[in-house]
């Protein structure tokens, strides 16, 4: 009896939910443009991350006579959930990174990209064309767009001694001034760098945990979102942080006195890539969008506004060399970075739990 009631409830709810859906579908149909009018390209990206700049959107829309609609992502894992639960054709272009790309490709959520159709593909730095996570069976599924590092940002007013090592996060003299990142990946990889382990495949997780617990009392706080860090820093609550190159550049442009250093041990590297969702009804348009995004013109204007490092190697030639040097925007830096590799769900869970143990220690 109870089982039957439960079953009935599930079915009723399904029906009701669909009824709600149908109703609004009809509403949608009446207001959607008639055939032959402008196409809409649905893009999922971080908010305020280059492609949703109103001027950029306007330029692309006018050039191709289309409409670009942005949706925002909250995290890589959330993007994956969104891909899995959205209907075919709802999303055209997304911005995943290596932490979810192999899964998305493996589950058939993405479609291969014909790089020959991208006029600007040849201008991408060579190493970025061969990222293992971006391809499968010789087919390319993701096109690099911007990249950067996660290293040390500090306040030159209060930190006078030269900084060149990741050990600064373990330096007693900076106790109470440090804001380490609250992220299992960044924390573990940084500790691995400090211990001389391979950041992507650390050999001794226990040592890493010990090292992170050792680091904990030196912090003023941990930061999780870029929003938090910028307010901590500007409010003079932290002077040294494990920080992204892109955000540091943008804070510099906003007038903050902040310096950036890639330590001698190397630093964490990351790449954001464009990919086209399987079932997209606008594949050609999606190609044009990606090509537009890796075009020298866009990439140059963004990096000059404080964006992350461009993948287009033509851009670097026009930039201020001192800025390029400090923020690590050139090819030389690429060699120093340990780019975040794909980790299985199992590994991520383990790392996350390790980090949780450190935080609740």
């Amino acid at each position: 009896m109870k089982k039957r009631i439960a079953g009935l409830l599930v079915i009723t709810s399904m029906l009701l939910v669909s009824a709600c859906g149908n109703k609004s579908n009809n509403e949608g149909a009446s207001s959607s443009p008639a055939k032959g009018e402008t196409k809409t390209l649905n893009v999922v990206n971080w908010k305020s991350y280059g492609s949703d700049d109103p001027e950029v959107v306007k330029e692309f829309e006018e050039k191709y006579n289309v409409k670009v609609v942005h949706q925002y992502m909250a995290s890589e894992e959330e993007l994956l959930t969104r891909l899995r639960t959205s209907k075919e054709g709802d999303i055209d272009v997304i911005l995943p990174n290596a932490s979810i790309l192999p899964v998305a490709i493996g589950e058939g959520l993405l479609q291969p990209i014909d790089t020959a159709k991208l006029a600007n593909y040849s201008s991408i730095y060579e190493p970025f064309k061969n990222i293992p996570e971006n391809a499968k069976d010789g087919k390319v599924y993701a096109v690099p767009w911007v990249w950067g590092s996660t290293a040390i940002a500090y306040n030159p007013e209060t930190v006078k001694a030269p900084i060149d090592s990741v050990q600064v996060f373990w330096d007693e003299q900076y106790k109470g001034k440090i804001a380490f990142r609250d992220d299992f990946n960044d924390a573990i990889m940084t500790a691995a760098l400090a211990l001389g382990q391979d950041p992507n495949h650390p050999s001794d997780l226990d040592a890493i945990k010990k090292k992170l617990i050792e680091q904990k009392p030196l912090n003023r706080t941990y930061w999780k979102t870029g929003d938090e860090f910028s307010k901590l820093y500007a409010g003079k609550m932290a002077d040294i942080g494990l920080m992204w190159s892109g955000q540091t550049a943008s804070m510099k442009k906003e007038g903050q006195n902040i310096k950036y250093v890639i330590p001698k041990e190397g630093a964490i590297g990351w790449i954001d890539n464009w990919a086209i969702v399987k079932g997209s009804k606008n594949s050609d348009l999606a190609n044009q969008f990606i090509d537009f995004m890796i075009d020298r013109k866009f990439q140059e204007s963004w990096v000059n506004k404080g964006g992350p490092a461009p993948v287009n190697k033509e851009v670097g030639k026009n930039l201020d060399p001192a800025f390029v040097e400090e923020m690590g925007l050139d090819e030389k830096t690429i060699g120093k970075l340990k780019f975040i590799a794909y980790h299985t769900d199992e590994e991520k869970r383990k790392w996350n739990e390790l980090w949780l143990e450190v935080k609740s220690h």
Partner: protein
Amino acid sequence: MLKKGIGWTYVSLVLLFLYAPILVLMAMSFNASKYNALPFEFSMRWYRELAGNDKLIDASLTSVYIAAGTAVICVVLATMLMLWAVQTNSKLKRWIDSLVVLPLTIPWLILGLSLLLLVSAAGIDKNFTVLLIGHVVISLPYAVLVIKARLQSMDLTINEASASLGANEWTTVWRITLPLLFPAMLAGGFLAFVISFDNFILSYFLIPGGSSTLPIEIYSSIKFGFTPEINAVSTVMLTATTLLIVLIATIMRSSLKFFLK
């Protein structure tokens, strides 16, 4: 007199605590720094940017509409439910008491995720109907608990007296119970409104592509930082609400008094 003095002092202190962060938040909308940094430097920069930010304005309006719809539905449902609860001695009542607070006890993330799974299993588009239902579900406990607090303390003998004087049931509800409940309905509605207005996760899961709400705009910005435009929006809304309340209070003074007596 002394009693009154102590009373007002206490109320002022509580209001100071309540409004201190709100005043800071409003002040920061006039501060030039993008990161709320001091020293304070007066600037209208964020209001100028807000004026040109159609997306943020649209999102804020969408939030207001959804919250208003949620509030109305919640008050109606909660009042009906409580009118039933107060006159019944059904065994169901205890179960329903727990059922009503259930949405409060489940993290919104989990509730939102399961609604998303339900929607996607049913193979339908995300839409505003489901979104509104989700908001009603999470806001309903607030409306119910406020109305309940009122109703249970209410003197039920009034109803009985009225009934024994020959007023039929509906006249009693309409002329006596509802006016007595009115302040609680109003407060419950406001609470439902603000719960919906500040909810990020349900909207985020269920909103159709291309639409946005104010919390979505805020929480999507945290990766790289939101600007004091958000403070500016909040300041505009707070000011508008305050003015609206003062206006309504002035115009409807007499009729309000009638209701609240």
